[in-house]
């Protein structure tokens, strides 16, 4: 639950940003170097927490930079792909933005990114990294600042292998990202499979699957169930008395939802490219200032929003966005202090980065993660080879 003061800040902030948050636009009378960013993200409904975090992380970086040449327009996609497409049309046609960003979900990104980049806009992804855009479908104006969708699952597979698990039970929802998750896990895990189950998207009761796990003779469980699905699964799994170790990507163990899972998540190992205890100055400052500004600990999504904004700011310092080639080159250098430490782009403009294994712990009253090992070092996605960029 969010504390009162935090809620207050959020509300005030929400009111200010609702339609179009214009941060000191007066300074670029000569038009040199000004950048207009269109942020399309999910701010209403069940998935709003992720979009709110991305927005808050992004805006924090913008505010901290004191750069008056950046203007951000924020719109709510309601997690509907058709709404996202129309908002991107609006951003491009009416708002005439230079850069688009903000989308949380892969299916929405797939709807928006190809047409945005085809219309000569930059798109910087702060969260989704669908396979289609990483390989043959990569584009010189598309940058992914988070991860390729498979990455965290691959790291989970690598971790399972390193730990010596030999008989995993794996499950994910029956939709493309779920299928990618299981593929990603199996790419690095080479033991046997005690079971492979696709659940219904949005399913909230996992009694049947848990019974299968119990009967399967597995030695470990891997799951990818984003959002409320993961909360439900973890609570029910903890309640079932099964003691098998669980691994998964960070999404079900992130700051925003950990408090809702509670003790059921304690000790679970999950994979992430960021955590609040990564030891570098940028990250320390980020965690502190985020907490001061919003009254809650930052999440993975907030860190990605923060990095995305800083990437844009770093490119703005080097080139004018109207000179696309120069600006693109500046983005590609990734010359900013990422909160995850070392960060660079591969040829397909997706991150090459370390992916860590975290464990859920309790600090006082707050559930959070601490890094216990590195699953993959300087990891790049497998699709990069198919991408024609270099």
């Amino acid at each position, binding site marked *: 639950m969010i504390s009162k003061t935090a809620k207050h800040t959020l509300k005030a902030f929400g009111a200010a940003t609702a339609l179009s948050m214009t941060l000191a636009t007066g300074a670029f009378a000569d038009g040199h170097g000004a950048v207009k960013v269109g942020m399309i993200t999910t701010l209403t409904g069940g998935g709003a927490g992720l979009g709110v975090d991305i927005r808050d992380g992004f805006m924090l970086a913008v505010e901290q930079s004191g750069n008056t040449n950046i203007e951000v327009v924020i719109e709510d996609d309601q997690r509907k792909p*058709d709404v996202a*497409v129309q908002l991107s*049309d609006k951003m491009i*046609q*009416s708002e005439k933005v230079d850069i688009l960003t903000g989308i949380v979900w892969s299916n929405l990104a*797939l709807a928006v990114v190809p047409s945005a980049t085809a219309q000569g806009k930059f798109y910087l992804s702060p969260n989704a990294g669908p396979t289609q855009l990483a390989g043959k479908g990569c584009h010189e104006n598309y940058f992914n600042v988070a991860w390729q969708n498979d990455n965290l699952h691959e790291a989970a597979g690598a971790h399972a292998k390193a730990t010596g698990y030999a008989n995993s039970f794996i499950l994910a929802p029956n*939709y*493309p990202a779920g*299928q990618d998750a299981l593929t990603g896990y199996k790419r690095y895990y080479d033991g046997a499979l005690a079971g492979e189950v696709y659940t219904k998207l949005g399913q909230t009761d996992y009694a049947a699957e848990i019974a299968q796990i119990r009967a399967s003779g597995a030695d470990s469980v891997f799951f990818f169930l984003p959002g409320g699905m993961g909360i439900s699964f973890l609570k029910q799994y903890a309640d079932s008395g099964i003691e098998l170790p669980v691994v998964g990507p960070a999404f079900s163990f992130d700051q925003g939802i950990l408090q809702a899972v509670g003790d059921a998540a304690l000790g679970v190992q999950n994979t992430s490219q960021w955590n609040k205890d990564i030891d570098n100055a940028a990250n320390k400052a980020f965690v502190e200032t985020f907490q001061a500004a919003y009254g809650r600990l930052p999440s993975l999504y907030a860190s990605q929003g923060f990095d995305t904004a800083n990437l844009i700011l770093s490119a703005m310092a080097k080139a004018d966005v109207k000179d696309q080639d120069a600006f693109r080159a500046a983005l590609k250098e990734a010359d900013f202090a990422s909160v995850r430490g070392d960060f660079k782009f591969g040829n397909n403009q997706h991150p090459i980065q370390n992916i860590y294994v975290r464990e859920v712990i309790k600090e006082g009253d707050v559930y959070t993660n601490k890094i216990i090992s590195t699953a993959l070092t300087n990891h790049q996605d497998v699709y990069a080879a198919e991408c024609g960029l270099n």
Partner: protein
Amino acid sequence: MIAERHLNAIILAILVVIPAYAVIADEPFTITLATKAVILALAGVGLNFALGQGGLVSFGHAAYFGIGGYAMGILASHAQSYTPLMEVPFVIEGTNSMPVIWLVAVISGGLLALLIGALSLRTQGVYFIMVTLAFGQMLYYFAISWPAYGGEDGLSIYVRNQFPGLNTLVPIQFFGLCFAILLIVLFIVNRLNKSPFGLALMGAHQNEERAKTVGIDVYKMRLVAFAISGAITALAGALFADLNRFVSPVMFDWHTSGQIMVFIILGGVARLFGPIVGASLYILLEHFLGGVSEYWQIYLGAILFFMVLFAKGGIIGRLSKKEQTHGG
């Protein structure tokens, strides 16, 4: 209070003037919004034929909207990748020609409605509402988990499909095309409503027993009306997919069915222009309230709610003097 005929003329005039103004003012997004309104209105016109004229309250018209969308998505994606749709027993190629896509959408929407209608029309009242919802949900889950055409990710078509003589990527030309289709469909539906078939349909809606005693096969008549209704909504679905250059299972979602229904109730059930007013108003609200607050859906909900309570018969019902029956 003015005559409904005059009101309709005013509505059409507004729908033409706004995009025309947008062209002059160079506001292409306004044209996009107007196009969206026209397309969703068309979907509403389809449902309104079954719901208003026939009294068949379908809570599953997303099924036909989605089928139309996927007709476009599947054909255009095969054209885009130069792979045939099927090779056995005969070769079917994809296409990016709008007229062909529309034809496929109308036929598949009509056939699907024929199938669903044949089963659903055995029930009545709330059961009919719910069984149509069930069929819509079936297709929704099927579309999500069927990997061949993108599953939940949907399908992106990078370039809008083509219509002879037009550049459909120019917003105002695509608007004109959709608007022309809406006018043609309105004309046809208006003729249908006044034909013996339409009158008998309305008659059976008001008094089923009487219709039966004069020898009308009510089931068969309703089935035909339901198929026509599904075909029109499928056409709208194909256009909507082309507007976004994208299709996804969301088109099959029950929220979509609910929205199409909302357009009709807002505008006025069984009014020819009801869906047009309803869809336009809904889009305006969505567009402007979205800027008011992060919690804009509270306002949207409140406005919709008061509309139901205080504007019985919809907006056209409020504004025009001609009384029309409002069955349900």
